């Protein structure tokens, strides 16, 4: 059976798809793509549906060996990659032959990158999704050396597709937010502080990003009751330092929520690296909806801008490889 063998995992690589939203009522985190745009682009470059299962890596990618056949992959992310030591382009479908090794290096920009495989990764479905929630083990664990990732045999007739990297919207340091219903539990200046000051990402993972800035204070006597939470929520523990919830968030939370990042900007939030800053801008529901429609239109334009790649890459041709060496 054709598969990818993990020779050396990145620091925090997981299999992700659109997640398992419908099981939150029994405590299962939604999970899913941290940067849905990169996932959609990587999948489109290998002619997959937008929600096919991919590898999502953090800080750096993995070293993967192709075993048992040829595969087609695409890397979406600001990084460098090689096949058997020969540089290969990102944002382009790549044909990998049996025995070849793909190395995806550290990211130059953003926290996450995506590797899509034609046909989608064929790891087992758990509660309707292949997404990995490493914290609880639902859908498996982070990638480890020796892991086997089943893939579908590649159709040799399918042409490789390519997208100019310059067209891909880069992660932005500004995230638009909507006030949360519980903002009334905070002091009157809390929302103003949130949007006035830059926030530094202290540390984070797929569950959330811990932010540092001026303390946000609850009103005396405010006792929030635990309730459902959303990805992008800025929840504030007693320390006054908010946590921006990511896709591996818990389903119910007891900390008060001051604001929520809009869906269109969740990828920008998720892509902030440790030590980077993020600024928040308050918008209203109409603006949030407009931003989402605009993001969808931009995705459509990017898909339309993908071209068939006619050039043969050196690693794809033994003859070219020989000439290079």
């Amino acid at each position: 059976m054709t598969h990818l063998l993990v020779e050396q995992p990145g620091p925090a690589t997981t299999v992700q798809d659109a997640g398992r939203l419908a099981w939150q009522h029994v405590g299962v985190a939604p999970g899913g793509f941290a940067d849905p745009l990169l996932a959609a682009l990587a999948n489109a470059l290998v002619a997959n549906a937008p929600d096919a299962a991919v590898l999502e890596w953090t800080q750096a990618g993995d070293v993967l060996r192709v075993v048992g056949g040829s595969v087609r992959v695409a890397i979406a992310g600001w990084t460098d990659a090689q096949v058997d030591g020969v540089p290969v382009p990102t944002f382009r479908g790549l044909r990998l032959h049996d025995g070849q090794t793909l190395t995806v290096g550290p990211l130059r920009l953003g926290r996450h990158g995506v590797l899509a495989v034609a046909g989608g990764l064929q790891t087992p479905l758990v509660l309707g999704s292949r997404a990995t929630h490493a914290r609880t083990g639902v859908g498996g664990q982070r990638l480890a050396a020796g892991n086997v990732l089943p893939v579908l045999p590649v159709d040799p007739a399918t042409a490789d597709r390519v997208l100019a990297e310059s067209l891909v919207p880069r992660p932005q340091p500004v995230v638009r937010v909507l006030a949360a219903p519980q903002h009334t539990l905070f002091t009157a200046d809390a929302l103003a502080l949130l949007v006035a000051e830059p926030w530094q990402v202290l540390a984070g993972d797929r569950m959330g990003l811990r932010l540092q800035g001026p303390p946000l204070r609850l009103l005396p006597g405010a006792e929030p009751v635990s309730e459902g939470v959303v990805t992008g929520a800025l929840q504030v523990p007693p320390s006054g330092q908010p946590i921006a919830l990511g896709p591996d968030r818990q389903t119910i939370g007891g900390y008060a929520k001051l604001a929520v990042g809009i869906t269109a900007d969740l990828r920008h939030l998720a892509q902030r690296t440790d030590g980077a800053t993020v600024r928040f801008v308050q918008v209203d529901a109409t603006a949030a909806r407009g931003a989402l429609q605009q993001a969808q239109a931009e995705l459509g334009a990017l898909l339309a801008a993908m071209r068939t790649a006619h050039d043969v890459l050196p690693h794809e041709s033994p003859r070219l490889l020989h000439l290079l060496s």
Partner: protein
Amino acid sequence: MNVTPLGDAALLLTVAAAPGLVASAAVFAMDAALRAAALPGVVAIVPAYTTLLVHFAPLTTDADALIAAIRALVPLPTPPPQRRWHVPIVYDGVDLAAVAAQLGLTPARVVALHAGAAYAVACLGFAPGFAYLTGLPPELHVPRRATPRPQIPAGSVIVGGQQTAIMPTTLPSGWHVLGRARLTLFAATRAAPSLLLPGDQLRFLPITAAELADSVPRCEVLP
């Protein structure tokens, strides 16, 4: 019922002012109505103590139309509790003595109070299969640990604030460990992945460490 957006992809439905059995009944009734209605665009319904969070697909759902449809729903009367779980517990947790000292009780009294109370599942969250239980006697309300423990083993019976629970998987927690149970609270491959469901009743049954290996939680079907 108050319906208000939480972000641009969820609606928060508040059906009661304060947690309790009355609030839970109102939550269950609205949960039943929402699931029966299967409103277009709704991707998840998350019941909690006094609220339900309705997640929807923001690109393809008209939020205003969804709010109107939810406001038009009539809560479904929910049947009375149908299941009562009896969970054997070895009360030998690492925090039992410290909790007893903090509350001014003997460890035996803490065990008697904890095992003597009747509990009900208000909702599930925090981790897969993690049931928030109501019914902890006020004498056992104890502030959470200042520093959470990085690893609380699966099966640990814990108390924190006004709540008690059983850990479904090994996870960090700031709650205190009173004892341990032997049960699988969550298994993705099971027809019903979560053992406990909202509305279930639950009692703890003290056993010895020697009895744990053969212990199983018993489900009593209520008349």
